[in-house]
């Protein structure tokens, strides 16, 4: 019996993954005949497959389309119960008077609460604390059966406390809609959830991510951990957030013309006009926004279909982000490229998550995933299919269990509203604000799918697990657009390598990582009759393409010239090309040289020149310069470089144009290096290492001034000498004692 033959409802899957003690919270009986039957069935499966129960659950293709999450069953949600409160005036201030304010139960001073309210809050807090302690997830809106159950528990406990203290029960506090929502989602809840997901519960790390992504809220809630740049996050954390927390805003309309709208709907919307800076949006945020959108849809779709939510989130996030990449810089992918990209991205994501789950090497996982996806269509089976990558037991993933539960999904979803207010998504074919609960409900009802346009680009089916055959794939429960036409014509290997490189960069951008690109560079096929020179040119051209160091290419990846990330990318590519130049022909290395040494030397050169530029800019008073100019002069070459500016909205300027131009100049040098045949390339590189430029002519200007001052000083000395010894006479003597005129003497000196 194969895994796909198992027919379990989502609730049953949950049950398989849930300890008996927690069953009640899922609205399921702790122990009954059905559960026993399922466990026996699972045990049988486990014996056959060697998988753990959790693994089994994640691998099962659910046959039943019955959705687990039915939020509408609990009626309208009342997240807040506003309370009008009177603040008395200051008795010592005759000008002060009583004021009215609207507050909430949880924000009321304790002494102003009625005994019933105090009791209720006590009960609520007790229950919530235990819930947070157990799952890292606060109780939020009554989305699910579990929340309903939780509320009932709160109510019961409230009644107990009320009875214990002789407090009359306030009926208005009872029932699913009377929740005061003391734990209305705040950014720290993201941290809580994230920490729950991550190994060792790295709350500070997750807090940093949230801080970075949700800076607006970070300012509002100072309890968040100090900022941690995404680029500083370890691979594991980035991978997790790729799936679940990749970005603050939104997908949908990401064409160039709509960039402003996306910005407004994204961080700008979140900022809600508070500051200009908060309204900034970059390609990164757009892509991250799409990742978030995808994650939302992925989670909801997976939940609705009983699939693994975790994987769904990753799939969705990756697909969403790829959607951004496809439209970034106005370079829409063709349908063929798009389809291939979908597979690649899906493979990459699966590879990444698999590597993460198995505690393996993330980059290798990505590459494997990419390779697997490419291998499905590529004529050269250079890659390892995804099926070869095993999934480690989920027991190694602390916190996995709660998120796989319906209420945790609800909890997660409910946090999104706070995270990205004003964010619109094409859900169910309609642009909707995801922070609005009816929107989320609609999304769930419609299968949580992207709008037709987006679905057309990234159909769910196309993103399905590559190792699952078409026959094994379950039909999605909600309507989806048709999958694009399959790619029939084989493509040259270099194209796939290029695509793989691009995809990896896409992943790097998503995660903020700058992992080394794949070491493999597929040499172009030498055509019949091609001379060595022609072939070298072809190889060089392929290498240049492989490097993707064009200003526009890098801009399309969201890299901002002048930033450290930009430089890191260039240097990473430099490592590759240096390895190609010298690795292909070790004879090019001179005595004492090594590939690593050459790579280090280039880094040293870059570092030294950066320092030199820093000093020069300080002298020129130009350290704090920003510009929107699309080009600038590389101070080390004098060449005007197109910087590859991003289509940024107001408030964003490129970093110091001189540094940006320096980086572009370095990229230009590397492109030139890549196009040179071996020996020439080696010589060119050595010449580059020896570059010593008097940037801005500072040294020569200084020397000129110093010389002028020196000459002036000498002139003064002469005058003093003349005055002292010769009075008004305009004579002096030369080395032979002959009298010479001062004018002649000056001429001699000059």
């Amino acid at each position, binding site marked *: 019996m194969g895994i796909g033959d198992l027919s379990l409802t989502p609730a049953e899957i949950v049950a398989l993954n849930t300890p008996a003690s927690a069953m009640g919270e899922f609205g399921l009986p702790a122990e009954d005949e059905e559960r026993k039957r399922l466990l026996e069935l699972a045990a049988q499966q486990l014996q056959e497959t060697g998988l753990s129960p959790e693994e089994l659950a994640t691998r099962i293709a659910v046959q039943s389309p019955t959705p687990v999450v039915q939020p509408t069953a609990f009626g309208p949600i009342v997240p807040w119960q506003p309370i009008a409160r009177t603040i008395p005036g200051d008795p010592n201030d005759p000008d002060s008077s009583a004021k009215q304010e609207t507050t909430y139960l949880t924000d009321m001073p304790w002494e102003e609460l009625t005994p019933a309210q105090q009791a209720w809050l006590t009960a609520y807090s007790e229950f919530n604390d235990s819930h947070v302690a157990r799952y890292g997830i606060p109780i939020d809106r009554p989305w699910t059966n579990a929340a309903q159950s939780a509320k009932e528990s709160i109510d019961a406990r409230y009644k107990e406390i009320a009875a214990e203290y002789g407090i009359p029960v306030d009926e208005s506090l009872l029932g699913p809609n009377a929740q005061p929502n003391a734990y209305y989602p705040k950014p720290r809840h993201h941290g809580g959830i994230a920490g729950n997901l991550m190994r060792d519960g790295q709350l500070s790390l997750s807090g940093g991510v949230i801080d970075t992504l949700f800076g607006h809220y970070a300012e509002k809630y100072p309890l968040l951990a100090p900022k941690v740049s995404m680029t500083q996050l370890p691979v594991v954390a980035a991978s997790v957030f790729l799936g679940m927390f990749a970005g603050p805003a939104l997908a949908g309309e990401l064409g160039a013309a709509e960039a*402003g*709208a996306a910005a*407004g*709907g994204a961080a*700008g*919307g979140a*900022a*809600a*006009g*508070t*500051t*200009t*800076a908060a*309204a900034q949006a970059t390609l990164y945020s757009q892509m991250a926004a799409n990742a978030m959108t995808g994650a939302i849809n992925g989670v909801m779709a997976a939940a609705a279909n009983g699939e693994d939510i975790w994987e769904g989130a990753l799939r969705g996030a990756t697909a969403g982000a790829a959607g951004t990449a496809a439209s970034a810089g106005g370079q829409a992918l063709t349908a063929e490229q798009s389809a291939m990209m979908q597979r690649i991205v899906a493979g990459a994501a699966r590879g990444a998550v698999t590597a993460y789950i198995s505690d393996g090497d993330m980059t290798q996982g990505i590459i494997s995933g990419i390779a697997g996806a490419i291998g499905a269509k590529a004529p050269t089976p250079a890659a390892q299919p995804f099926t070869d990558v095993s999934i480690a037991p989920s027991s190694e993933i602390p916190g996995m269990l709660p998120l796989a539960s319906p209420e945790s999904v609800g909890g997660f979803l409910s946090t999104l509203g706070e995270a990205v*207010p*004003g964010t*619109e998504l094409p859900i169910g074919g309609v*642009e909707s*604000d995801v922070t*609005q609960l*009816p929107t989320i409900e609609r999304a769930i009802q419609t299968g949580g799918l992207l709008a037709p346009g987006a679905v057309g680009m990234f159909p769910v089916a196309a993103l399905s697990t590559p190792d699952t055959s078409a026959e094994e794939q379950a039909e999605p429960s909600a309507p989806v657009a048709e999958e694009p036409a399959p790619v029939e014509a084989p493509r040259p290997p270099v194209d796939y390598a290029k695509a793989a490189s691009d995809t990896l960069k896409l992943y790097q951008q998503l995660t903020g990582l700058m992992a080394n690109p794949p070491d493999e560079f597929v040499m172009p096929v030498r055509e019949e009759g091609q001379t060595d020179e022609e072939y070298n040119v072809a190889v060089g051209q392929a290498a240049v393409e492989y490097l993707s160091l064009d200003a526009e290419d890098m801009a399309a990846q969201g890299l901002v010239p002048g930033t450290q990330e930009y430089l890191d990318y260039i240097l990473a590519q430099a490592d590759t090309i240096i390895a190609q130049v010298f690795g292909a022909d070790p004879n090019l290395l001179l005595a004492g040289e090594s590939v690593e040494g050459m790579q280090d030397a280039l880094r040293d050169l870059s570092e030294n020149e950066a320092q030199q530029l820093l000093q020069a800019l*300080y*002298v*020129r*008073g*130009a*350290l*704090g*310069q*920003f*510009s*929107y*100019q699309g080009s*600038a*002069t590389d101070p080390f070459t004098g060449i005007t470089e197109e910087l590859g500016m991003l289509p*940024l*909205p*107001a*408030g*964003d*300027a490129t970093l110091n*144009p*001189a540094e940006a131009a320096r980086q572009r100049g370095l990229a230009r040098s590397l492109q030139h290096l890549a196009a040179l045949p071996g020996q020439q390339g080696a010589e060119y590189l050595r010449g580059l290492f020896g570059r010593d430029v008097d940037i*801005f002519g500072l040294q020569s200007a200084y020397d000129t001034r110093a010389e002028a001052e020196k000459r002036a000083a000498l002139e003064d000395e002469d005058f003093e000498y003349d005055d002292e010894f010769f009075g008004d006479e305009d004579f002096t003597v030369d080395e032979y004692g002959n009298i010479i005129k001062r004018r002649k003497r000056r001429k001699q000196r000059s």
Partner: protein
Amino acid sequence: MGTLRAKTLRYPGSHGLNTIEETVVDENTRYGVVVTNGVVDSGGKLAARKEFTLQTTGFSNTTRVLWAHRSLNSVETIWSAADGQIYTGITTLTSRYDYRAGFQVVDVGGAKTSASSTGLANSTETYGLTVSVNGAAAQQVNVTGSSAQTYANLLVAINADLTGASCSLVGGNLRFISASNGVGSTISVLNSLGSASNLLLSTLSNFTAIRAANAGVSSAENWQFASFRGRVYAAQRAQYFTALDESNFTVASVVGQPWSNSVNCVIAAYGRLWAADDQEGGSRQTVWWSNLLDGLTWNSGDAGSLDVSNAWPKGQDTIIAIAAAFSRLFIFGRRSILLYTLPASNAPTGMTLTDVVENIGCVARDSVQVTDTGIYFLSDNGIYRIDKLAQTTALMTLPQVSYLYNEEVLAQIAAETATNIRSGYYPTEGYYALSFPTSNVTFVVMTRKVTPADGNRLVGLKWTNTGRPFYAFIFDENANWYSGGVNGIHRYTGYTPDGTSNAYSLTYTALWNPIEDESRLKHGKAITLVLEAASGQTGTLEWKHDYVSGTVNSNAFTCSTSEFAENPGIGHVSISIGGSFKVIQPSVIFPINGNAVTLHQMRIYASPGAVKQG
């Protein structure tokens, strides 16, 4: 008894103020310890200044800023600011921009018209925002998407829900403005959906940001204007950076303003606008420049900025003013000055820090005047000039202009609010005027008149009057020099005070004069003045003895019709003085009312007495 002696003071006061030398040392000098309301005429004599005569009719407010705008079709217009409005005109002031009411701009990318699409869903979806007017509770504004597909409809829908305020398209952006004026007039727009289903503002197409709210004012006229490519730009701390069309005076949309609140400095130079000093936004070290030839665009093209935090010579400073001259950009800090030299292309990204000045900065933005001889400005240490730089390698030299009367300048700095200080330049005569309106004192530097002190100190005088402080200065294409003041704009012309309360007098007080020998007693006889005046011109001669400040002798006089028959003409006035003294300090005061007075000579007659011993 000794023979009667005479000591002649030629061209008294024509070297201007000198408060650092109390007693005459060099009898060839012509300083005065008080030289008020005078100028040094072409003959090198001290003469009465002209009056700033009111030109405006029917205006009861005080004009505090003046700007001469020369339009693209060569029409020059005087712009001014008073009582929370910007005006044009001289005899009649026409309000062109009223900022008395509190307002807030919602930047939707500019260029929106009534017919522009809002971008809202054409459905029954509701969109909301909240607005607090004059500090009251927030008002909910709800708009149904289908009924607000254009901005015309959107404005109708918004205004239907607004009380005490309105919303309109100004400069292609939404502007919410209070219906009341003055300090209590405020607007606070929030992108909050309130009871609606969706956020309204951030859903609008091309929504960029809600700009900082502009509180209502009753005054606040510290604008700095700049004219550039058909528009007049106005910058003032805590006021919305505004661009007005020179023809129809409509507000133009400024695209992508990079500062977070408002800039206090704006100049036009080298093909673009330059702005600086966003104090409210907490950015007082940054200079921004617009796109080339486009003063409305600040976030594209070659627009950019320069944070000079790392360029101050002594750690930290803040920008007070910026000026452009001699292919340089001068950035005046409070305690230092940065000199940037632009490249041949004038590209700001290529400009380099050429020189810095430590310990001399700028007190007031409006004290800076770029003239044909250099840049004058007010520092903590007095009035300075940055000499015109003739060569690209030349560095800044800063002669102190107010060297001879610096104490008086410093006293005025201490008594004045920096934002009230104004300056002007009258190129016809080369006057640099620096006004302290609160104390009604204006220092006027005769930039073309040099004193003997140190070879090149410029003659400095003091101007004042009764009830007509000089709030602003501007010079126009017809060689008219204007002052902003009470009841509008005044022109430098004639000698008749315009109004009974506006009186001024030419005053000259000589240095203490020992008449060659301070040790010897003198018996005073008379003082004779050689004047150019009209018959009937009155005056008062005052004199003090022996450094005794409390005792002032005086004698009034009137220029006789016989002596001044030429009317006006040159004549003598002799006033008897008595008493004995070792040193004497004569002073003469001429109320100016219709005619000029020029002081040619003062002669002191006295007979020598004994040398006192013991």
